[in-house]
């Protein structure tokens, strides 16, 4: 009787251990199949669109009257442009907010502020995009006397809101992790609180803060709905923040719905999706590198 009970317990143990192990495999399988399927669906494009035309041409025009053109340069530039603009807005706000939360706010205020930041991360991107159409866009146009309501700046502002939680929470973690010994030492040497923060704590938390910025940048590049709704989606090569622009993500969202399956256009959209995936992958892993570096410094 006792023996039977023990064996069934051990059987269950082994059974579930393996179930858990197999489940944990899914992440690897999904990541690999993501890459495989993106490659598979974009591969036919290579024979149909010359490599140089894809990467070096600014002309993206899938149904032009004199032929189809699939040059990624313009939309890639626009993606990087609006993301760079986003970082210009969100880096100072994000780092300052992180400093406030970790160094200045009393514990009680902290317990309110941290969930507040998470709340910001919880707002669906389509709601933020809608807010850009009805409020932020018109506000920017009115403030700067512009004709276009939908613009790169509008999109960048909304994206800043969306990447702020990433930057703030990771920077906050990095700043909090800085040893108190450093703080006490600098205060004892006569530094005031701000000097301590900007000359001692921030440099010590540098790796984590850089990682948070990289992850925020990655999110900005990959965000779809907010830029789709707020940026105006004109295929332009412009440096003017008040002009409408069209990103890679918006291009996929607009065109994939109307495209014939397995046409050149379909494959090209997977091609730019693959470019987006690789970009996000590289940025994410650079960020990981910085996070690891930060951990090493502490030990």
């Amino acid at each position: 009787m006792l023996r039977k009970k023990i064996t069934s317990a051990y059987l269950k143990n082994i059974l579930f251990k393996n179930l858990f192990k197999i489940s944990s495999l899914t992440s690897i399988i999904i990541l690999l199949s993501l890459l495989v399927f993106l490659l598979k669906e974009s591969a036919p494009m290579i024979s149909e669109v010359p490599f140089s035309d894809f990467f070096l041409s600014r002309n993206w025009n899938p149904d032009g009257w004199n032929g189809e053109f699939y040059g990624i340069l313009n939309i890639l530039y626009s993606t990087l442009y609006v993301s760079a603009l986003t970082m210009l807005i969100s880096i100072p706000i994000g780092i300052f907010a992180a400093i406030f939360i970790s160094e200045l706010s009393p514990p009680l205020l902290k317990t309110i502020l941290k969930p507040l930041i998470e709340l910001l991360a919880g707002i669906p991107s389509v709601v933020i995009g809608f807010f850009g159409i009805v409020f932020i866009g018109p506000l920017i146009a009115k403030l700067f006397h512009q004709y276009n309501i939908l613009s790169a700046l509008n999109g960048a502002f909304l994206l800043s809101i969306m990447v702020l939680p990433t930057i703030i929470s990771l920077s906050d973690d990095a700043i909090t992790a800085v040893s108190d010994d450093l703080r006490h030492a600098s205060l004892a040497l006569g530094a005031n609180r701000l000097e301590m923060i900007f000359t001692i704590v921030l440099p010590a938390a540098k790796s984590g803060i850089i990682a948070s910025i990289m992850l925020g940048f990655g999110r900005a590049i990959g965000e779809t709905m907010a830029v789709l709704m707020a940026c105006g989606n004109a295929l332009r090569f412009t440096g003017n923040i008040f002009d409408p622009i069209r990103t890679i993500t918006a291009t996929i969202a607009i065109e994939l719905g109307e495209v014939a399956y397995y046409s050149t256009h379909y494959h090209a959209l997977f091609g730019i999706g693959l470019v987006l995936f690789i970009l996000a992958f590289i940025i994410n892993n650079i960020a990981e590198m910085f996070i690891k570096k930060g951990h090493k410094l502490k030990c």
Partner: protein
Amino acid sequence: MLKNPIIKALVYFLLFSSIAFIAIFLVTITAILVKNSIGTINLGFILNAPKNGMSEGGIFPIIIGTILVTMVSALMAIPLGIFSAIYLCEYAKDSYYTNLIRISIRNLAAVPSIVYGLFGLAIFVKSLQFGTSALSAGLTLGILTLPTIITTSEEALKTVPSALKQAGYSLGLTEWQVLTKTTLPVAMPGILTGIILGVSRAMGETAPILFTGVAFYIPNLSLNLNNQFMALPYHLYIMSTQHHDIDGVRGIAYSTASVLLILTLLLNIISSSLRMKFRKDLKK
């Protein structure tokens, strides 16, 4: 430089205003959306179907569609996510293999949502021939929420004091018994936090469902997973950019946005208060 009282005051002001900026944004977006919904939003709006080419009526089938597709994603992501987290936290040794799993999870979390849309189209709609359906879209969203659920569950499992587990082992319990009798019950609120966060994220996503099953308009409410569906985020998108009379349906768009915003904010508030309670309980 930071000794100058004027500069000091300025820096303090900037530090404070960056936090104020976020609070003001949250209040403004909620206030403006809710204020402009007044007049359209009422019980009838929630409980009626769209009428007259979606220029009148409510959003009932759209809410149902969102719930349906979110449930599919939850059914896929919750067991897989929790099982993976249990393996990583309780069983895995620090090996090359577990390192590979962790790297994959972190990279999955960074994949743009539109790329998940492409992936869902290629694998579920085309290769597995589920077609553009609630099933394809739900599975795509499930994949998207998987990293969230794994990471938060793992964090919850990690915080369970090892003394509790060791007490179990010293009584001769197997790993499985320790897991079900002590670790999981203690970590449950934390795991729940992750599940709610994942579900609320799946509910608000648009890009992954664009090509995998969401429909502009469906006349009859259907709960069949093989059919297309309507969803709140996509409905908001078309009401604000694609509808033939955008200015005429602004009220509907505002109300849809409010419903979506309030739903996700509520889920987020529930999950953060759960987490706070969880942390407090663990401290005791």
